[in-house]
C-alpha cells in the first residue's frame, strides 16, 4: 500500500559546507543518509528521519540541520495534523500506535504554577557556600515513637536506606536500554550516594557489584527474579503500574531479546517478553500484602519493600491500602512518566499529573495518621531541581528521574525507543549502536547532573532559611500558587500567591 504519510521532518544540508565525509551516513541508524559514489553526493530520505539530532551534532562542518516539515493542512483545532496522521497510520496498518518516552500533550504542568518562598528580614536566609546544608534522606518505614533507655534505642526500626540527595534513578530495564546505559546509572548512583533501579529486566551479572545501591524490581512477568537477585539488592520494588501506561503490561519485542538479555531475563532468546497487565497473584490488596511479606521473608526483613503504582484517580485510597499492606515505600508515577514502549493512546490519556497525586496521597496518609509508616517517592517527568524541590514541599520524600537522566546521557527525546534503534546508544541492544554510549563519559554526565541539581536545591533551601531537606518535606507553606483555580489549590493544599 502506498503510504499517505508525509515526512515529519526535513533535512537541510548546506552543500557549500558538506565535505562528503559520510559521518551522517554512518551515524544514522534509520538509514536516512546515503552516499552516491557516482555523483559524489550525500542524499537524505526525509521520510525516515525521527529528529534525533545525532547527525546534526556529529557533522564536523555543521552542514546539517533538521527542521519540522513545514507542510500545511487547512487549520483545524479539532483535526490537528497529528490526529490526521495517526488515523492515516492506523488505516494503513490496522494496529495500535506505539510510542516511546512520556506524555507530550499540553496538560497543565502544575510545577510551573507553583512558586517558592524565600526569607526576608524576619528570618535570615542561609548561604550554602558558607553554612552546612543537608540533603540526606532515609527511605523506609518509621515507627511513630522511639523508646529509649539511657543511650539505647529499644524500638525495633525497620530497615532505613540513606540517599545523599533526594533524587534516584527510576526503573529502566536491561532490554529496554543498553547495558552501557545501565552501567552508567549504577556507577553514578554508587558514586553519588543514591540508588538506581533495574526495572523489570533482571540484573546483569556484571552489575551485581553495584547491588548496595540497586533497587531491583519484581514485576508481573517476574523476569530475572531469583534469590540472588533479591539478596544483591538494597531495596525491593514491586511494580504494579507505570505512569506512561497505567493498567497495561509491558512488551519487549523479540528483536531486542539478545542472548545476554535472554540470560538476564531468564527467557528464550528472540522471544517476545510480555509482562501481563496485572500480577496474576495480585487481584486485591490482601494479595499484595502476601507478596510484600513473601519478599520480606525471603530477605530476612533486611530490605525495604517499595510498591510502585501509576498515579490514577483513587491513588490516595490505594496508597493508604499499600501502607497498611506492609510496604515501606510507595512510588507514585505520574501522567508524564516515560517508557520504552507504550500504546500512544494510553500514554497520552490515562493517569493523573504527579503534582496532584503527591498532594492527595500525602494528605490522606496524614489524615489517617500513617504517613510515618511509608516513604513516598514521586516520579513522572521531573525536569529540573525546581520540580524536585516543589515535589518535596508538597510531601514527597524523594524523586525518581529517568527521562532527565537519559537526556543527560545523550537522549534527544525522539520517542523511538520502542524500535530498538537508538542513535544515541541508549534504547538499543544493537552492539553497533550501543557501543556509542561510552559508560565513563555517561557516568560523568549523570554525576554532573545530580551535582548541579543538588547544588541548586541547596541554594533554594538556604533561601528559605532551611538547612536540612526534611524541614521542607511536606512543608507546603513554602509554596504558593499562581494562576490556579480554588479547586486545584485545595487539592494541592497551597494558598494563592500574595494571600
Amino acid at each position, binding site marked *: 500500500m502506498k503510504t499517505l504519510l508525509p515526512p515529519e521532518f526535513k533535512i537541510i544540508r548546506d552543500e557549500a559546507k558538506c565535505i562528503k565525509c559520510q559521518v551522517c551516513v554512518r551515524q544514522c541508524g534509520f538509514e536516512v543518509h546515503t552516499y552516491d559514489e557516482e555523483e559524489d553526493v550525500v542524499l537524505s530520505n526525509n521520510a525516515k528521519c525521527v529528529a534525533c539530532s545525532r547527525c546534526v551534532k556529529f557533522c564536523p562542518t555543521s552542514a546539517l540541520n533538521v527542521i519540522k516539515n513545514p507542510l500545511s493542512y487547512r487549520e483545524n483545532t479539532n483535526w490537528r495534523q497529528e490526529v490526521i496522521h495517526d488515523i492515516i497510520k492506523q488505516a494503513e496498518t490496522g494496529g495500535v500506535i506505539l510510542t516511546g518516552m512520556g506524555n507530550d500533550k499540553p496538560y497543565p504542568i502544575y510545577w510551573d504554577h507553583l512558586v517558592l518562598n524565600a526569607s526576608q528580614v524576619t*528570618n535570615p536566609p542561609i548561604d550554602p557556600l558558607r553554612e552546612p546544608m543537608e540533603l540526606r534522606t532515609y527511605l523506609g518505614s518509621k515507627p511513630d*515513637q522511639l523508646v529509649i533507655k539511657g543511650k539505647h534505642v529499644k524500638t525495633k526500626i525497620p530497615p532505613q536506606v540513606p540517599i545523599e540527595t533526594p533524587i534516584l534513578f527510576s526503573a529502566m530495564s536491561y532490554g529496554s536500554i543498553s547495558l552501557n546505559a545501565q552501567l552508567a546509572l549504577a556507577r553514578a548512583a554508587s558514586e553519588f550516594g543514591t540508588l538506581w533501579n533495574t526495572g523489570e529486566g533482571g540484573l546483569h551479572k556484571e552489575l551485581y557489584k553495584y547491588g548496595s545501591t540497586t533497587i531491583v524490581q519484581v514485576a508481573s512477568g517476574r523476569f530475572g527474579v531469583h534469590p540472588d537477585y533479591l539478596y544483591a539488592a538494597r531495596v525491593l520494588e514491586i511494580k504494579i503500574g507505570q505512569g506512561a501506561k497505567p493498567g497495561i503490561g509491558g512488551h519487549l519485542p523479540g528483536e531486542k531479546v539478545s542472548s545476554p538479555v535472554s540470560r538476564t531475563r531468564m527467557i528464550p532468546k528472540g522471544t517476545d517478553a510480555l509482562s501481563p497487565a496485572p500480577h496474576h497473584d495480585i487481584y486485591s490488596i490482601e494479595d499484595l500484602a502476601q507478596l510484600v511479606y513473601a519478599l520480606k521473608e525471603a530477605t530476612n526483613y533486611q530490605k525495604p519493600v517499595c510498591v510502585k503504582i501509576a498515579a490514577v484517580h483513587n491513588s490516595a485510597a490505594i496508597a493508604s491500602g499499600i501502607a497498611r499492606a506492609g510496604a515501606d515505600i510507595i512510588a507514585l508515577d505520574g501522567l508524564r512518566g516515560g517508557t520504552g514502549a507504550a500504546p500512544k493512546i494510553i500514554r497520552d490519556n490515562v493517569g493523573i499529573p504527579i503534582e496532584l497525586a503527591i498532594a492527595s496521597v500525602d494528605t490522606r496518609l*496524614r489524615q489517617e495518621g500513617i504517613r510515618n509508616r511509608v516513604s513516598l517517592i514521586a516520579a513522572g517527568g521531573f525536569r529540573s531541581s525546581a520540580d524536585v524541590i516543589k515535589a518535596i514541599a508538597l510531601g514527597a520524600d524523594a524523586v525518581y528521574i529517568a527521562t532527565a537522566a537519559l537526556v543527560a546521557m545523550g537522549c534527544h527525546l525522539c520517542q523511538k525507543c520502542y524500535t530498538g534503534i537508538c542513535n544515541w546508544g541508549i534504547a538499543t541492544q544493537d552492539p553497533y549502536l550501543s557501543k556509542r554510549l561510552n559508560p565513563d563519559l555517561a557516568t560523568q554526565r549523570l554525576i554532573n547532573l545530580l551535582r548541579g541539581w543538588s547544588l541548586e536545591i541547596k541554594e533554594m533551601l538556604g533561601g528559605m532559611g*532551611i538547612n536540612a531537606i526534611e524541614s521542607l518535606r511536606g512543608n507546603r*507553606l513554602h509554596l504558593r500558587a499562581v494562576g490556579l483555580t480554588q479547586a486545584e489549590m485545595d487539592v494541592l493544599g497551597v494558598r494563592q500567591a500574595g494571600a
Partner: protein
Amino acid sequence: MNRVFKLNNPYNDDKVISACSIFGMIDQSGRCFSGECVTTAIANMQVRSNGLGGGFAVYGLYPEHADHYAFHIMFLDKKAQEETANFLTENFLLTHAEKIPTRKTAGIVDPPIIWRYFLKVNSKPRIELEGLSEDDYVVAKVMEINTKIDGAFVFSSGKNMGVFKGVGYPEDISHYFRLDEYKGYLWTAHGRFPTNTQGWWGGAHPFSILDWTVVHNGEISSYGINQRYLEMFGYRCTMQTDTEVMAYAVDLLMRKHGLPIEIVADIFAAPLWSELEHMEKTEKDLRIKLRQIYSSLLINGPFTVIIAHQGEMIGLTDRIRLRPLTAGVKGDMLYLSSEEAAIRLICPDLEKAWIPRGGEPIVGRLYQKEKKELSHRKKERG
C-alpha cells in the same frame, strides 16, 4: 470558631511572626523569690520588644493549692465567662475561683476579664476507663474551651504554677498583675515584637499547656511540617505561632513519649550529619535513629527558646545559633537571657557567664528533682 483566633491572626497569615527578648532564672535549691528581679532584667531589653506583648511564667506559685490544676482564663465578655464557669463545674471539681488582682497601669489599655480557677479532676474512674491520664483529660478540656467557647481562652493550666501575660511592655504587665507580690523558685519572661500591628492578649508569651511553658524568640522555617506532623498526633495548632508548635512538640516528646530533655534537644536541634562522624558508636547510632524517626520535628530556622515545667528550666537555640542566648550562674541560681547585660544588671557578681553552642541544651533543675531522677534511672538500669 472561637473569635479569639481571628484576633490572634487577623490577616490570616501562614502564622504570626514576631521577634523578642527572653529571660529565665531558677533557684535550684528551691528557694522562692519575687518577680522584681525578673521584671528589671526583661525591662532592660526593651528595644527587643515593641509594647505589643509581654508575659511571665512562675513555678512554685500556689503552694496552698499545689494539688489543683490552676486555670488562668481570659474572657472577651461576661457571657463567655458564664459559659466557661458552667463548663468547669460540669467537668471538674471547682474548689476556688477569683478575679486575678491587678493594678491600674499607664501602659495597659483595654484588658480582658481575667480570672483564675482551682480545679480537681473528679471523674477519675471514667477517665481511666477511656485509657486517659488526668493530664490527657485536662488537655482535652482546655482544647475544648479554647475552640468551642466563643470569647474564652485558657492560657495557663498547670499545677502550682501560672502564666501572666498581655499586651504591653513586660514591665507594665508585671506591674499590672502585681508580680512583685508573688513568689516562685523559677521565673521566665518574654517581651514581644510582633510584625502585626494588632496585639492580642492571648497571643503574648509564655505559651503553655499543663505545666509546660515556652518563651521563644525566632521564626521557624520548618513550621509547616512541624505543624502537620503534630496534627497526626491529634494536636490542633489553632494559634498559628511557632511557640505553640514548640509547646506541643515538647508535650508529645517529653510527656507522651517520655524522652528526657537532652534527647529532645537532639531532635529539635539535631547535630549535623558531619558532626556525627566524630562521635563514638553508641552516641552516633542514637543520633542517627533520632533523626531518622523524628526528622519532621527538627526545628529549622532561627530560634532561642526557654522551656520550663515543674522543677526544670531548659534553654536551647537552633543548631547554627541564629538567635542569641547567654547563660549565667551564681550559687544555686541559673540565668538564661537574650542579652548578658540583663543578667549582669540583676546579678553584678556572676560567677560565670557563657554563650552556649548552637543546639546545646542548658538545663537548670531543682536539686531535689535531680536526685529523684538519678535514682529512677539507676532503678531502670538495675
